[in-house]
């Protein structure tokens, strides 16, 4: 980049010597080069170019070109670029405006408390304007409203409010959700090992899923209730059942293997062309799929291909005694599905119920499980 502030004029006209003599009385001209009889170029100081241009225009000389160079020209060009100047002004104003507000909240040191909870509390109670936030007041307010805090400090760093907290250390049994321990399955309680809390059941009780087993509190000798986490290992006999029905007579429906195809060309959901094979099925089931014929969005032609499958039905008769073992195995498999997490299988048995034409097979697996989910 040339730093010297110069302007090069390229002029065209007659009697240029006279013109140059007039110009040199007021201004210093440099690098005067006569290209042809009518064409001359010369340089002058950038700061005098306006006056020289005016003089040239008054003299009736044609100015072919005016070329500026130098740092002063570059700077003036920047300042006359109104879009750029406007953008800089808008940026400065917006930056100055948004710089007055807290844009980010950062919480350090939380363990049990939620960061969102603290941030929401501070946002609700205090303004986002930096000048209106008293960090001492934020600290005091946090300590007053969050009983689990032992220490809180706040600083404003840039546009971030950094909140540093330390939570109170509680005895091990004081931590937790303080929710009662409930039965996860139906069963008969066989063994109880209480760790913390108050028991609501005893050995031999039959409990249903959702029944409270241990309450999340203890009552001391003075009768005061103290919250603790409900913890216990409660084992129970759980009855896992699987049931299968056997019908002596039932109708089985199968596909014969015969099919008929129908093609339906559609545009915007309207059928344009349909081709259907001859079909005289008494019973059938239908499957169809839509296929895009074109990939453009202007004319989305689609073809719906419908396949008709012929069906036949037949009546099947079977005696339960012939398939008894098979049905018992099916019922057992179903029962086993219910006791995936069982610790120990204690017993298993099945029962049969004969109704009119139907036999219900019930298979029961008795397992020992921790119903408290400890």
């Amino acid at each position: 980049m040339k730093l010297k502030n110069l302007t090069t004029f390229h002029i065209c006209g007659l009697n240029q010597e006279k013109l140059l003599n007039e110009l040199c009385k007021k201004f210093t001209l440099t690098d005067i080069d006569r290209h042809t009889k009518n064409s001359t170029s010369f340089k002058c100081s950038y700061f005098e170019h306006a006056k020289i241009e005016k003089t040239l225009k008054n003299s009736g000389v044609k100015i072919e070109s005016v070329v500026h160079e130098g740092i002063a020209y570059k700077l003036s060009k920047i300042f006359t670029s109104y879009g750029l100047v406007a953008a800089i002004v808008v940026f400065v104003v917006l930056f100055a405006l948004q710089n007055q507000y807290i844009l980010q909240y950062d919480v350090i040191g939380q363990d049990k408390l939620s960061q969102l909870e603290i941030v929401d509390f501070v946002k609700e109670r205090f303004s986002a304007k930096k000048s209106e936030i008293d960090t001492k007041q934020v600290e005091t307010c946090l300590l007053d409203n969050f009983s689990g805090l032992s220490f809180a400090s706040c600083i404003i760093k840039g546009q971030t409010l950094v909140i540093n907290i330390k939570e109170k250390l509680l005895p091990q049994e004081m931590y937790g959700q303080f929710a009662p321990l409930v039965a996860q399955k139906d069963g008969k309680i066989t063994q109880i090992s209480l760790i913390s809390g108050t028991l609501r059941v005893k050995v031999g009780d039959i409990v249903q899923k959702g029944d409270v087993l241990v309450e999340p509190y203890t009552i001391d000798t003075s009768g005061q209730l103290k919250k603790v986490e409900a913890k216990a290992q409660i084992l129970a006999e759980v009855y896992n059942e699987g049931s299968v029905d056997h019908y002596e007579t039932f109708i089985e429906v199968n596909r014969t293997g015969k099919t008929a195809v129908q093609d339906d060309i559609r545009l915007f959901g309207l059928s344009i062309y349909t081709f259907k094979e001859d079909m005289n099925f008494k019973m059938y089931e239908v499957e169809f799929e839509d296929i895009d014929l074109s990939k453009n969005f202007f004319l989305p032609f689609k073809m719906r291909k419908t396949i008709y499958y012929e069906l036949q039905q037949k009546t099947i008769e079977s005696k339960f005694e012939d398939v008894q073992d098979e049905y018992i195995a099916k019922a057992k498999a179903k029962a086993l599905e219910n006791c995936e997490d069982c610790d120990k299988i204690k017993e298993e048995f099945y029962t049969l119920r004969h109704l009119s034409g139907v036999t219900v097979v019930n298979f029961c697996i008795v397992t020992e499980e921790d119903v408290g989910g400890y």
Partner: protein
Amino acid sequence: MFNFLNEVKQNLKNPQGLDLNGFNIINLSGHLLYVEGHLGLVTLSKELISFKVKKSVIIVEGKDMILSELSDNTIKIVGQIKKVEQI
């Protein structure tokens, strides 16, 4: 400030009482011609530059000449200067 041309004029003592305040021309190795006291440009081209001085005209002949500087009182010519003539 030391003025070389004024020093030269004083040392000459001008015994004949000539007018030495008209113009000054310095030719530097035939590449640069410096003129003080011109009274206006007469001709300007790459091969010939002429200008008025007090009571005469100076003709400068050469090749690829340009007016490196032109002000109210001074001229600086740069190029291959072959001849400087006063008429």
